[in-house]
């Protein structure tokens, strides 16, 4: 049997919620002495297991606060699970909240290099790819402009172009299938499908059930951090639809 592209087993992410976040150190000491310092465990994701093989496209569905984004953070290794593990075989590109994390005072070029560095590229690679990135994002005229002068559409265009330059094997999409407007929307969508075609696997978080049905062959259904179902797309989507109707 082939090695799975992504294997997640019993993934649990436990947050502490409660007093500690806003109160500051002075209050923390006083409450610790008085013993009314309270924290609670909050399970953002609890005992989630799934495997994705080569050629799979996984859709993750669930209401707001179901733990979808947290699970993606575990897969991209931004977070480590409190329990369980995720094994990943391949180069990941995650398109999460594209426009953020840039620096408004730096120019487009400086931001592009910084982002490339953050994504783990090397300088040689960036030198080689920079012209292409600029061309793809159609920002040639803005190369030396401070980033804060750009529109939010332009920002996500640049972010998208940089993230897609690596020819990732695993693509992770959080509610984004295309970027920008008009012409660029079509172009980015085409690029995205090209990566999906050539890559090993894709994970897509979406609130549009139609989209999931159309594109994904597997579905993971989360509710309040728990895994309600994982398996072939059609039956689970039907269940989910019925479930949503019942709630209404």
């Amino acid at each position, binding site marked *: 049997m082939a090695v799975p592209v992504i294997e997640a087993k019993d993934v649990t992410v436990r947050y502490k919620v409660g007093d500690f976040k*806003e109160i500051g150190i002075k209050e923390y000491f006083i409450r610790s002495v008085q013993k009314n310092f309270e924290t609670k465990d909050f399970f953002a994701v609890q005992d989630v297991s799934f495997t994705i093989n080569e050629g799979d496209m996984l859709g993750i569905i669930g209401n707001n606060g179901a733990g979808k984004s947290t699970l993606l953070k575990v897969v991209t290794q931004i977070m480590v699970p409190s329990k369980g593990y995720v094994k990943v075989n391949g180069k990941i590109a995650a398109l999460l909240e594209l426009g953020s994390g840039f620096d408004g*005072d*730096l120019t487009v070029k400086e931001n592009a290099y910084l982002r490339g560095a953050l*994504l783990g590229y090397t300088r040689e690679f960036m030198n080689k790819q920079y012209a292409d990135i600029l061309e793809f994002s159609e920002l040639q005229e803005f190369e030396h402009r401070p980033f804060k002068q750009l529109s939010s559409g332009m920002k996500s265009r640049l972010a998208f172009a940089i993230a897609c330059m690596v020819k990732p094997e695993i693509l992770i999409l959080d509610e984004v299938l295309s970027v920008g407007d008009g012409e660029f929307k079509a172009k980015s969508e085409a690029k995205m499908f090209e990566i999906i075609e050539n890559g090993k696997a894709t994970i897509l978080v979406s609130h549009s059930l139609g989209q999931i049905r159309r594109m994904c062959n597997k579905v993971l259904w989360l509710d309040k951090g728990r895994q309600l179902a994982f398996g072939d797309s059609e039956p689970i989507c039907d269940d989910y639809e019925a479930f949503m109707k019942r709630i209404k």
Partner: protein
Amino acid sequence: MDILQRIKQHQFLFEELVKRDFTKKYKRTILGVFWSILSPLLMLLVQALVFTQFFGRTTPHYIIYLFCGNLIYSYFKESTGAGMGALMENASIFSKINVPKYLFLLSKNVASFINFVIILGIFFIFVLFDRLPIGFHLLMLIYPIGCLVIFNLGMGLILSAWFMMFKDIKYLYDIFTMALMYFSAIFYTLDVYPPAVQQLFYLNPMYVYIYYFRSIVIYGKIPGLAIHFIAILYAVLAVLLGALIYKKKNYTFLYYI
């Protein structure tokens, strides 16, 4: 091979972060760099005007004596003050991309260190004008500077981690550094205190580094082994503690955003 690739990636990231922090710090203005030199000199001028009447009469090379204290203390304050925000300011980055977080602090420290080196250059000009000997003995200053760099790094690690958890650290730290300044014998001398009390000053890392500097520059004397030992002890302790906190909290910083 894999490790080599990683080092290359991290080096690239580190360089880009340093570039960013520098650009942001000085905002591409000429006055930006100039001001960072001018402000410690103005501070020195004020202290010299006020305190020369009190301590300057009995202390030889009082201006250099003052300058040593200010040089060390302001580097410490600047470096740790800027380092404190290193994680917080980059939270929007590391909550979306998996990066080695200590690099954010390292890059901030580079910016403060370069600032320090510029002022150190001016310090040597002062030393020259004060007709103090310039020679190979000044090379010994590398030791306290090295210790101080490590110490600042460690304190930066500790503070940036704490700052993620407790936002009011900033105000407490301002008070702390102020108190530390008065305990560092920057503008006064210790001989009014009984010997037992004088020993207590070695509990303050700032004083140890300042003492070393003065000893070399003004008196041309290399301090004893004990001073060398505590100088590096403070540095190692700070950096160990900082590294420990980062190692333990590395993935939980995310929860405090």
